[in-house]
């Protein structure tokens, strides 16, 4: 952790890093929960924008027109108009910052465009040049920045209450109060906690949070709360409609004792042999990871039966993934023997949701990903493997033991430039420290 702290970098240069690593970034459209995702298809090479002119010695902020050379997440490599094929002054810029505008913005505020001083004498008639370069070209919509601001807004508000997984004992739920919202991520304070900094970060679309009353509704028995927890003076409960909808399930078909494979919620790089411990209402299941179960069930975890983190028996072997099994079976595990020896049965394949979206992620793509073991940290990461809808995410510069399996629709992965856009720290790879 202390090593991580040293690596915090507000100034991580994604552009140089991508060039250096010869890597591409996952496009914004692949992250449906991310701001501007629905509009990002409109952004592409050749598009013109008005952007801060950094090649000038005037005392005031002036702008010039630049062309998008390359797009990487929210970031774009720009070239000032007038440089032609000369890439010497290309620069990377986050397109969602306040210094990038649609062409025409400067004129609307009466500000003249000023060419960069490197090329200011290159053309005697800038008007003719610009008319030729701009006519028929694409630019951003006038309301681009308003769209950015709107899309970053969250419907959750601070001081709203909800039910959240207890990070210290994942089988139980607690009441959380939203203390802070950054880019749709919530910093929750456990209501019953005496410690000021006893908080927990998760995305507003996370499966770890639910509206007040959810535990009672689904029959989740362990909620740390007083009898009259449903309302608290001075606070508002977050309404049901703010939470992502889960697939409606009348009878999920899972039975206690059935064996499955599941991502270990306490070690997200591992897919483990697991057991359905309890079937709750509305399709929710309490799952125990075989071999690491605490005697009191305190490490059981609640997954919805349609969650992309649970798999039928045989999933790992079918996909060439190493299955984590109880120690006693480490050298000789086969599902057949294990089911026999534990007198259990495998959950039928048809009970699992095998929906496979055409997600568009590719191996090698760079992104920003939450370290789910320390969810306040968002790190530079790479998709290293893809199995159906599952992405294997590696944190750049860190050992493979910190890797995580995440779903392609996980709200805990973001496009390159997301941290900068929403104003939070990005953890640079440790070897990037100067």
């Amino acid at each position, binding site marked *: 952790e202390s090593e991580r702290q040293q690596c915090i970098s507000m100034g991580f240069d994604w552009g140089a890093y991508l060039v250096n690593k010869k890597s591409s970034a996952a496009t914004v459209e692949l992250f449906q929960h991310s701001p501007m995702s629905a*509009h990002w298809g*409109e952004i592409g090479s050749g598009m*013109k924008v008005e952007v801060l002119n950094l090649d000038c010695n005037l005392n005031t902020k002036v702008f010039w027109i630049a062309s998008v050379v390359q797009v990487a997440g929210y970031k774009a490599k720009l070239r000032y108009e007038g440089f032609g094929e000369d890439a010497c002054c290309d620069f990377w810029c986050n397109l969602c910052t306040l210094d990038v505008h*649609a*062409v*025409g913005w*400067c*004129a*609307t505020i*009466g*500000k*003249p*465009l*000023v060419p960069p001083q490197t090329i200011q004498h290159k053309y005697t*008639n*800038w*008007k003719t040049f*610009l*008319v030729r370069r*701009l*006519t*028929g*070209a*694409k*630019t*951003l*919509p*006038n*309301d681009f920045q308003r769209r950015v601001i709107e899309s970053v807004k969250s419907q959750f508000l601070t001081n709203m209450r909800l039910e959240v997984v207890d990070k210290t004992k994942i089988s139980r739920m607690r009441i959380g109060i939203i203390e802070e919202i950054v880019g749709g991520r919530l910093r929750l304070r456990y209501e019953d906690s005496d410690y000021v900094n006893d908080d927990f970060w998760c995305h507003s679309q996370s499966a770890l949070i639910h509206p007040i009353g959810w535990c009672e509704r689904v029959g989740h028995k362990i909620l740390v709360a007083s009898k009259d927890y449903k309302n608290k003076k001075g606070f508002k409960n977050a309404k049901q409609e703010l939470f992502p909808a889960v697939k409606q399930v009348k009878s999920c078909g899972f039975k206690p004792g059935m064996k499955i494979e599941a991502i270990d919620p306490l070690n997200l790089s591992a897919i483990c042999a697991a057991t359905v411990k309890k079937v709750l209402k509305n399709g929710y299941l309490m799952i125990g990871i075989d071999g690491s179960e605490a005697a009191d069930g305190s490490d059981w975890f609640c997954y919805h039966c349609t969650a992309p983190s649970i798999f039928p028996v045989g999933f790992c072997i079918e996909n060439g993934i190493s299955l984590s099994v109880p120690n006693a079976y480490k050298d000789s595990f086969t599902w057949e023997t294990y089911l026999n020896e534990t007198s259990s049965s495998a959950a039928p394949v048809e009970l699992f949701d095998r929906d496979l979206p055409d997600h568009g992620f590719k191996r090698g793509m760079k992104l920003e990903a939450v370290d789910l073991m320390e969810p306040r940290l968002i790190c530079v990461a790479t998709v290293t493997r893809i199995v159906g809808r599952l992405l294997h995410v590696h944190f750049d510069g860190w050992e493979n033991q910190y890797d995580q399996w995440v779903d392609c629709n996980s709200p805990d992965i973001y496009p390159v430039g997301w941290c900068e856009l929403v104003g939070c720290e990005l953890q640079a790879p440790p070897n990037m420290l100067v």
Partner: protein
Amino acid sequence: DTERKVSRKWEQKQVQIKTLEGEFSVTMWASDNKK
């Protein structure tokens, strides 16, 4: 088809440009705000 898709998504607009030498307008494409 591609032509129709583009015309639905993008609209032509007159864009005003102000430089140190004066103002003029150009025709550019921007995505349709309403869609």
